[in-house]
């Protein structure tokens, strides 16, 4: 089909289609470098939760073990029909549902927070509070990214983009300039984070915090 080209006049016109200018290399690099710096800064953080998670798991296992030891003999007998009727996939399904619900709640809270943050960009009076809330959400975000909830590609991409925005807000200080806040707002707009959150979160399903 390459031997069926357009007429020369049409080909020449096609080559003019959206003729590109020289790329703004330095301006683009500045944005990429900024995002990469944030990526590097947040990389060691995720591992901090692992010892806590391991300790929680160990505690849970210990509790289950003690519970079994103390359980009366009679109750060790499986109740007829119950064990047999429970399908193998029941437990993983419960886990998936729990993670999904936790993700939806987190995304709902993040959406409410970012909406308030965006509204407060002009006044810029609540950096400390915004930063603290962002750090809280960032921790949950990281837990979800490393959980089964992060296996879904679409959710993962949204959580990754959300992490970038939250990390930027978490670094805000009372000395931050209007330009700093505006950069964060632009980042939110560019990635469409807020609109994507609104698409994912069903209306009215999550509590809002009411403040930053």
């Amino acid at each position: 089909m390459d031997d069926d080209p357009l007429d020369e006049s049409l080909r020449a016109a096609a080559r003019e289609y959206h003729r590109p200018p020289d790329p703004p290399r330095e301006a683009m690099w500045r944005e990429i470098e900024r995002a990469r710096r944030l990526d590097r800064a947040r990389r060691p953080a995720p591992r901090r939760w692992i010892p806590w998670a391991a300790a929680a798991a160990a505690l849970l296992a210990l509790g289950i073990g003690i519970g079994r030891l103390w359980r009366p003999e009679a109750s060790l007998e499986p109740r007829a029909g119950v064990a047999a009727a429970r399908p193998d996939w029941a437990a993983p399904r419960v886990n998936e549902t729990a993670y999904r619900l936790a993700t939806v709640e987190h995304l709902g809270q993040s959406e409410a927070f970012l909406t308030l943050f965006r509204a407060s960009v002009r006044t810029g009076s609540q950096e400390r509070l915004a930063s603290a809330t962002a750090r809280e959400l960032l921790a949950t975000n990281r837990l979800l990214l490393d959980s089964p909830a992060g296996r879904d590609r679409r959710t993962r991409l949204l959580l990754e983009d959300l992490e970038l925005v939250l990390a930027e807000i978490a670094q805000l200080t009372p000395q931050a300039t209007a330009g700093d806040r505006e950069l964060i707002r632009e980042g939110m707009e560019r990635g469409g984070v807020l609109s994507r959150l609104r698409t994912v979160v069903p209306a009215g399903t999550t509590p809002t915090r009411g403040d930053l």
Partner: protein
Amino acid sequence: MTWNPHAPEPVDDRELIGRVLAGDARAERELYDAHVDRVFRLVYRMVGDSHRAQDYTQEAFIRGFRRLADFRGDSALSTWLCSIAISVTLNGLRSLKRAREREVGLEDAPAIGARPVEADPDLKVRMRRAIDGLPEGYRTVFVMHDVEGYTHQEIAATLGVQPGTSKAQLFRARARLREALADFARD
């Protein structure tokens, strides 16, 4: 700006990738410098707007760096980066289209598809409109092949389709353009 998509890549990508993955920030810049022109050109051809092309290009590189550890070397690094750029660009254009559709009131709706074909006699303008009006898949392949000079193999690797699909879409794109610009073709 002269561009040849078949020109050999002057940088050893494997060595660069290794350095980037080892955390060498300077290697990131080198990798960016080696590929940014090609990626930006392609994105710009698709969007025709400097700001958006800039946004999508930098987003493509940011995602590329984040996922570099997943790059298996099945295709050239430039092809892999272009496939990310195309994905970012098409997603961006779809969001833009949805936003514009929401903004257009119902009373304006009938006017959207009814462009006055004969209104502008300039071939470049008519060609631009005709290419803009192609379905997304046809337009992407047409721009990559006939405008930017990619081969069907490269297009297939970039878009994740068979070369035959790329050829078929180009054939249909050209047919639509010939039809839309029939009066010019006869001249």
